[in-house]
């Protein structure tokens, strides 16, 4: 009885809708193909969406403060590229990874300071750094992928397994747990929600809102940089256009997961499930032999349906 009761409590969670959508979509795809619900396929799907999902963890925190980070794809691509450059120059793998994450830190500090110290709107600040990042990548690579020699142990990050589970998925799960705890159980998390919920009330209550904002941009870029390092470890090739356009998918994941672009609302778990849903659709399109060009259109439809349902549900629940 108690277990049943607790299961019923789940439906009050914000993430419930998107979780149901994920399950229904999975069942729908399984109706048409026996290959979807297999361990190897599910693990492959998970690995494929894990990078988007990891980045969406940083993004959803930014969105909860009422901001947006368009530069995540550039932070990711540039971090992978710098990691590759370090290997190329003969540095150790630890130095290479640290340099990659350092790129993320620098991106985040730049975004955060443009937004807090100068007061640029987040959309503009991160649009600028997005473009600078892309430009730097072309300048560094001259459009040619970089494929340096790397030690065996480095490729574990992107290619390894823990039992049947790919390492990037393990990293995703660990980050999901850590950041869920941070956002729901710590003072910092509370301050992130308060800043997005009502910035001036938060500031007048003593919340250091500028510091909170700086922190979420640094976290978002650094997490994206980690995704970039993992991507490089997986393919062992730093592509000049790596990460381009991924910001839209990452924002979509957060939005499908219930985050409000107006700030104050959203969750890490929701964003991760949102990324999973997008990944599941991509997989379904391939398995069902649907034109892959249709995938983007289907994802777009899902975003609109998911967010509309969320908005309608809130309107019904509200007291006008």
């Amino acid at each position, binding site marked *: 009885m108690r277990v049943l009761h607790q299961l019923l409590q789940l439906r009050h969670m914000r993430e419930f809708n998107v979780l149901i959508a994920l399950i229904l979509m999975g069942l729908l795809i399984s109706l048409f193909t026996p290959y979807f619900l297999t361990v190897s396929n599910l693990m492959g799907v998970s690995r494929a969406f894990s990078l988007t999902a990891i980045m969406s963890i940083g993004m959803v925190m930014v969105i909860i403060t009422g901001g947006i980070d368009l530069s995540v794809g550039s932070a990711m691509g540039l971090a992978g590229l710098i990691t590759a450059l370090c290997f190329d120059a003969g540095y150790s793998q630890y130095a290479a990874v640290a340099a990659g994450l350092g790129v993320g830190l620098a991106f985040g500090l730049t975004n955060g300071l443009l937004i807090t110290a100068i007061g640029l709107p987040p959309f503009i600040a991160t649009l600028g750094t997005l473009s600078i990042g892309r430009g730097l990548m072309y300048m560094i690579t001259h459009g040619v992928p970089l494929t340096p020699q790397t030690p065996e142990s480095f490729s574990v990050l992107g290619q390894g397994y823990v039992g049947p589970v790919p390492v990037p998925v393990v990293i995703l799960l660990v980050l999901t747990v850590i950041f869920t705890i941070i956002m729901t*159980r*710590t*003072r*910092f998390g*509370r*301050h992130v*929600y*308060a800043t997005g*919920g*009502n910035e*001036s*009330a*938060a*500031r*007048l*209550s*003593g*919340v*250091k809102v500028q510091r909170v904002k700086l922190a979420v941009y640094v976290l978002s870029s650094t997490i994206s940089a980690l995704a970039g390092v993992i991507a490089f470890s997986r393919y062992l090739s730093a592509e000049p256009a790596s990460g381009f356009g991924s910001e839209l998918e990452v924002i979509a994941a957060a939005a499908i997961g219930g985050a409000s672009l107006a700030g*104050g*609302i959203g969750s890490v778990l929701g964003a991760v499930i949102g990324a999973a849903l997008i990944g599941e659709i991509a997989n379904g399109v391939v398995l069902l032999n649907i034109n892959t060009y249709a995938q983007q259109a289907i994802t777009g439809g899902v975003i609109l349906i998911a967010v509309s349902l969320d908005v309608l549900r809130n309107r019904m629940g509200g*007291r*006008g």
Partner: protein
Amino acid sequence: MKPFLEMISISKTFPGVKALDHVDLHLNSGEVHVLAGENGAGKSTLMKIMTGVLRADPGGEIRIEGEPVVIKNPVHARSLGISIIYQELAVVNNLTVSENVFLAREPLRPTGLIDRAKMNADTRAVLSELGVDIDPEAMVGTLSVGQRQLIEIARAISYKSKLIIMDEPTASLSHHEASTLLRMSRKLASQGVGIVFISHKLEEIFEIADRVTVLRDGRTVDTRPVSEMTSDLLVRLMVDRELDQLFGHHTSHATAEVLMSVRNLTEKRVKDEGVFVRDVDFDLHRGEVLGFFGLVGAGRTEVMEMIFGSRPHTGEISINGKPARISSPSDAIEHGLGFVTEDRQSRGLVLGMSVRENFSLTHLSDYCSLDFVNRRKETAACADYIRALGIKTPSPEQKVLNLSGGNQQKVVLAKWAARRPRILIVDEPTRGIDIGAKAEVHSLLGSMAEEGMSIIVVSSDLPEILAISDRVIVLKEGRISGELTRENATQESVMLAATG
């Protein structure tokens, strides 16, 4: 007089709450009908049903001029002759007066372009009918709050409304503006328009009403002509308690010890607009309740924002004899200050968060080890304050959005009281809240002073300032224009300092 609008046995149920329980209300043409009641009594819900924002539960009936109607939405309500003027102004600041009056029904020329000349002429006609002198081509943003309210009334008149609902229209008006508004409402009534007037101000109610209906806990308690009503009776009907029991007697807890002294406080101006606050000097004693009075625009809120670090300033502030550098609210809070802001919805509360989360935002570290929030401790502390302050909420987890104004204000007070500041600034602590909640807020401020806290009360409600302050400082045009001890402070002396 035949009733224009009849609401018969109207009920409204929200999940878990019965907001209205078989309410009857008859509104006549040409009368000013005051709707009185504490916050949460159901006034707002009733208004929303009248204007089509909410639908009543099945079972009741609404009749207009005797004919049963279903009011579908606000546009439909307007076409039936019902207009509302909300407490929060619904005007667009960057449009002109006439553009606001004719918003969404602009007169067109045959070419399809807006007929600006006609719009301005018609606006001028309505305004002069109201007897006010406002340029139809002025930007609404440049007008005072009172003038903006008149624009809304002009708009309602130009719709040919037969019933105008005014939801606490004088709450943010100066004395002069308020009396203009009252005069105007009477004039409209004499022309046959029905007015529903919601107010918490007793004097005002007796000045303007023809009839009064009192709501309590979602029920109609009584409807009677104002000639058969007294202040005491009205208060008893609203709160079910006597006026004397509500407001206790004043006891001063002020000591001789100076806790904070402010010298040469002057605003650092970025733009040359609004009032320029300068050379403000005063001392605040431990345990003192210091009132700050001034007309709207005298700079009261600005002074408090400078002290609290949310407005750039020069000058010295010292606390306990030591200079305090305050350049942000968090600096101020570290120096032991707290600030209950004037506008609780936009600056006091995170509306989408729960009572518990709003309550603890000022002092979350009290419940934290490392950075982790101990939610059990937090909830327990919040529950204590909910009980102590009598906050009406189903649980600490309720979103503050769903509480009534008075209860929201108590949440703001609770979040600061729990922080235990040495100095608490409260700006318009009882604006828009009912008389019962107001008395509770006053007694809470009194008991905080008794515990040794120093309190600065900013209010445009003069009787309130006189009732609770140990000393009154009066501001005029950005400077201190008078300081009065409790003995010397009377309505006349304070007003003289504020205006003379």
